């Protein structure tokens, strides 16, 4: 091949080549890290929540009147909601998972002077809680009606039995079966009666998202959430009836945020999907600018060298040899840029790791980015290179 003379000719016309190589290096650095972040966000949004996202309708109810017998009213609501065609289970809850609102408690396997309390999402549900959320019980038992405590300030009794997520179980009782163990929370001692495979809590960006505790309790008060599980495909029909059903029982209250759980999650992941859109746009724009830069430099150098190309043709170059000359020249520039880009990409990632708590870039993003830029470079240079190969050898004798 003719790499040496191409390289030495290139080194005599450095400026354009250096600028494009730097641009390619910069593009590689940004694109690999952006791809990495995009993929991480995608993974975050699409990780399994453990819940039946598409077939759950949630709502929050707020009473405005006074002298309400909350317990009686809630019991009536649960009856009425369950009677809506397509509804399979209903539970009350203190909070809606993935909504950004909820409560967390510190729990531990022991209680000593220096106990480290593990922050844990806490959901207060009825005996239908697991079925209403579509959770998968992997060991122990589900709640029964007898487990459920309706809180009464005069009695001041709290629920005794709890079900926890596998993530919480592994955190608190590593290498042990958590079922039957005592779970300490402030002054109270709870008993773990079951473990669910997975459940996402309230805050999607919290590292403790998977650590949750389900408590069979209802706090009758001026506001409460309902979680309504439906048969697949009937979610929208159920959703449209929730408001009227509840108002028919008592219209002196506000029914808010009747949403499918999937939509609750979508809006909570809004900043993540916004980030994906922004970064994807940046990636596309950068790649476009790089392609335009390569096309521009190649077209310029072909125009500049028309006479030289004609001379080469006169001296016996075949068309494909001219085409190849420009492809190889561009490939060299791209490769120099990419070599620099690998360093730049690693440095950029290091910066992001240090300052933005990003994870280390998976190594394969770099060869993937390089492959994309190599292909894009060939694609970009092909047009100008083909035009060069069509230059007539008769150009050589034309007097200027």
């Amino acid at each position, binding site marked *: 091949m003719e790499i040496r*003379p191409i390289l030495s000719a290139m080194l005599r016309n450095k400026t354009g080549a250096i600028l494009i190589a730097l641009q390619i290096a910069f593009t590689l650095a940004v694109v690999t890290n952006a791809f990495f972040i995009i993929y991480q966000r995608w993974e975050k949004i699409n990780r399994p929540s453990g819940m039946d996202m598409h077939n759950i309708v949630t709502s929050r109810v707020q009473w405005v009147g006074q002298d309400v017998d909350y317990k009686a009213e809630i019991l009536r609501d649960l009856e009425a909601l369950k009677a809506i065609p397509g509804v399979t289970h209903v539970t009350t809850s203190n909070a809606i998972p993935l909504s950004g609102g909820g409560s967390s408690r510190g729990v531990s396997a022991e209680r000593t002077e220096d106990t480290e309390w593990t922050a844990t999402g806490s959901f207060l549900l009825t005996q239908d809680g697991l079925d209403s959320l579509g959770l998968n019980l992997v060991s122990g038992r589900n709640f029964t009606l007898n487990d459920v405590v309706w809180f009464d300030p005069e009695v001041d009794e709290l629920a005794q039995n709890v079900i926890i997520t596998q993530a919480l179980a592994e955190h608190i009782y590593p290498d042990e079966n958590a079922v039957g163990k005592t779970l300490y929370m402030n002054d109270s001692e709870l008993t773990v009666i079951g473990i669910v495979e997975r459940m996402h809590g309230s805050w999607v960006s919290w590292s403790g998202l998977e650590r949750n505790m389900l408590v069979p309790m209802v706090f009758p008060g001026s506001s409460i959430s309902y979680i309504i599980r439906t048969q697949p495909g009937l979610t929208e029909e159920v959703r449209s009836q929730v408001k009227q059903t509840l108002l028919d029982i008592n219209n002196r209250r506000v029914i808010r945020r009747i949403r499918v759980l999937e939509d609750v999650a979508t809006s909570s992941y809004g900043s993540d999907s916004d980030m994906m859109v922004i970064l994807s746009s940046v990636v596309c724009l950068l790649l476009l600018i790089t392609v335009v830069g390569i096309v521009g430099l190649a077209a310029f150098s072909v125009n500049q060298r028309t006479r030289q190309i004609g001379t080469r*043709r*006169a*001296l016996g170059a075949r068309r494909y040899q001219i085409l190849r000359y420009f492809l190889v020249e561009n490939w060299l520039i791209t490769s120099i840029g990419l070599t620099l880009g690998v360093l730049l990409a690693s440095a950029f990632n290091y910066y992001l790791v240090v300052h933005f708590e990003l994870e280390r870039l998976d190594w394969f993003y770099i060869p993937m980015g390089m492959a994309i830029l190599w292909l894009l470079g060939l694609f970009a240079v092909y047009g100008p290179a083909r035009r060069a190969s069509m230059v007539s050898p*008769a150009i050589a004798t034309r007097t200027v």
Partner: protein
Amino acid sequence: MLAMNNISKVFRTDLVETHALRDFNLQVNEGEFVSVTGPSGSGKTTFLNIAGLLDDFSHGQYVLDGEDVSGLNDNERSRIRNEKIGFIFQSFNLIPDLNIRDNVEVPLRYRGLSANDRRQRIEKALSIVGLASRAKHLPAQLSGGQQQRVAIARALAGEPRLLLADEPTGNLDSMMARQIMELLESIHSNGTTIIMVTHDAELSRRATRNVHIMDGQVSEINLHEQMQANVAQA
């Protein structure tokens, strides 16, 4: 060496049709040194382009070195240019980014010669034109006459059977022009066929034969020199 029969070349643009060559007939024998003269725009360069397979033609037949080249495709024409023909241009046409050595190497690479073979040919060609010591220089570091000698070395390195030159001394002063002419004469004396377009009457007279082109046709052949050529060949 070459025979053109009724060659026509028409340049068409949106507005005009230029008949650069019409019913052009010429035969050049092996070993001749032909000078081509004629007024500006008469078709000299057009003739040379067709002779050197740099351009195609509209009608007629062209036989080069015993081969009818009328129907050859681009790759075959490139190969013939590379192997049989050497070109010398008025403005030298060296590649400015390559040093002298690499310039001479260009056609040899297209021929696919080994590095060793290329090196020997380059050294030989550069020493013939007396520029072996300048191998690492860039074209811009040489005088016009030296640059043209590099171009001649580039043409010679391929050991062509036919050397085509379009006003090789057109950009040079008379001293340098004479050096180039002496170089061409010595190449000719080694058996290479040369066709040279020139405006310089004195140089033209030093060729073995003169072809005059007018309006795209061979108009007259200088009988005196033609006779001399015949005598020399006999």
